[in-house]
């Protein structure tokens, strides 16, 4: 072990740093636990929990007070970059330190966006330095994180009564732009999302199709199209699986109906 420098510690808060470990590989989590235990003498830290993927991490970050999340980048269910975005919805988002075994593009993106990251296998000194910096960490910018994403997100997130709710993309039937929000409709209920429909369409264009200036519907949920309204000025409406309400199709988007019929 190296000699411990006292100067580093002066800025650290006396209360222990509450750390959440997120990694899909159990050995990686237990290795981090060991490392944190080793440095707890010089830097007070306490592990509040371990999560195997992003969705679990968000649940844990809500039920515990977490100062910093050690977040693996490549995970099933929800990857690290997406998890960091959803974490920003929390009233007091924790600091994030990414961990990764990759050495190529992902790391470049971290560098460019000045995000904290650690390369696996994780070096004890680097880990300590990164944790010491956490106190002065700036808030993460969601737009930068989103730009870094390789795949589209697997969840949308909304904040309701202080809780972050994750909506699986596969559950969404349609997305409709209202005045300031986007209504997200699933089989069960509606949510209000503060994102733009244009950007959602750009991100999820493969999954959703625009049927109206203000509405995207899930391709997989389309059951058919029917005419509604009085003779003469009747308009096409989309029939969607799992919900009884109809979504109107604008005249300009009639090609969607034609391409659906061809299938």
């Amino acid at each position, binding site marked *: 072990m190296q000699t411990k420098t006292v100067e580093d510690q002066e800025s650290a808060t006396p209360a222990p740093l509450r750390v959440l470990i997120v990694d899909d*590989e159990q050995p990686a989590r237990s290795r981090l636990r060991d490392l944190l235990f080793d440095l707890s003498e010089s830097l007070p830290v306490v592990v509040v929990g371990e999560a195997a993927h992003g969705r679990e991490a968000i649940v844990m970050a809500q039920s515990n007070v977490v100062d910093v999340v050690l977040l693996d980048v490549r995970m*099933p269910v929800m990857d690290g970059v997406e998890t960091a975005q959803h974490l920003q919805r929390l009233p007091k988002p924790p600091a994030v330190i990414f961990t990764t075994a990759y050495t190529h593009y992902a790391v470049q993106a971290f560098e460019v966006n000045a995000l904290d990251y650690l390369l696996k296998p994780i070096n004890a000194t680097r880990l300590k330095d990164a944790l010491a910096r956490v106190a002065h960490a700036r808030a993460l910018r969601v737009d930068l994180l989103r730009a870094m994403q390789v795949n589209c997100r697997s969840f949308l997130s909304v904040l309701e009564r202080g809780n972050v709710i994750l909506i699986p993309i596969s559950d969404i039937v349609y997305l409709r732009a209202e005045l300031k929000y986007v209504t997200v409709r699933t089989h069960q209920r509606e949510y209000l999302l503060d994102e733009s429909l244009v950007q959602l369409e750009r991100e999820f264009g493969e999954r959703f199709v625009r049927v109206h200036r203000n509405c995207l519907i899930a391709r997989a949920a389309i059951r058919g199209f029917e005419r509604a309204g009085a003779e003469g000025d009747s308009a096409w409406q989309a029939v969607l699986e799992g919900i009884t309400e109809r979504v109107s199709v604008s005249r300009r988007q009639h090609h969607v109906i034609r391409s659906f019929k061809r299938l």
Partner: protein
Amino acid sequence: MRYSINQISPIGAMPNFCQWATQWRILLAVHGLMAFMVFAYSANWQHWGQDMMRAAQLVEPFLVMSMIVLAGGNRVLQTLHYSTAVVAVLLIELFWAIALHLVAQRYWGLASESMPRMVAVVLLVTALLLFYFHLLAHARSPAVAEARLQALQARIRPHFLFNSITAVLSLIRKSPQRAEVALEDMASLFRQLMADNLDLVPIAKEIELCRQYLDLEQLRLGERLQIEWRIQQMPADALIPPLALQPLLENAVYHGIEPAEHPGVVVIDIYSVRDRLHVILRNPYQSEGSHHGGNKMAVANIRERLFLHFERQAEMVTRVGENTYEVRMSMPYVRGKQ
């Protein structure tokens, strides 16, 4: 080991007489030469057809007999030193030339050809063909260099290396013994990966390598990774290109197991039917939210190396099902020394 990329070396190479590619080349070359020689002889176009027929009466049986004997003796020829093999081939051809000449003279009444002339032509054509195959081998030596390079590139993902080291580090305090085994596995895995990897290896050896690799992956992934071996019917002495299987397993883990929330099964099915060896690999696969890039590279690399070893007799197809990904390889069942 004879069936290797080394076989096509600049020192000299006997073609594999069992291969279709070789047989086609011989047939085309001999018929081309025959047509040319008869044409040069014939007085005019009308005679050419007749003369061809007459020549074919001699050449065709000769060709068929020689090719059967060469294919039959292929295994022996491959093990001989190149110059000895050349002499052997010339002797075989000489024998057939004399035998056929006698038969033709006695029973078919084709006495027009003098024996020394026929023997000379046969030996000349044989030597010419052997020289052609020799040149062909030379022409392919850049391919050998390339194969070397590819064998080098068929390397493990750095991601696997670093994650495995992390896994071993996590074991050192709690169960040093398991850490030791893991490090030993890693050492032999990397020794194999850094080896020359040009000669065909017994499939049993590749399987052993795969097991070591999978043990390491299991260390990281635990019960998320399940393996189903169906290799009871596998001929352990069958020869395959080295690292024909391990990179595919790595793909299966990377694309099929790691991105999945729930445990998945990788199925490895190896068997032989008559003279062909079949290798089938199946893993779960979600088309959404997974990267594709590396996948094609490993498959293309292995396909290339299969071709370098077996030419058109090897086959490799990949199939993406609803929730599965499948690679099927089939190649000649070449027996190695046990």
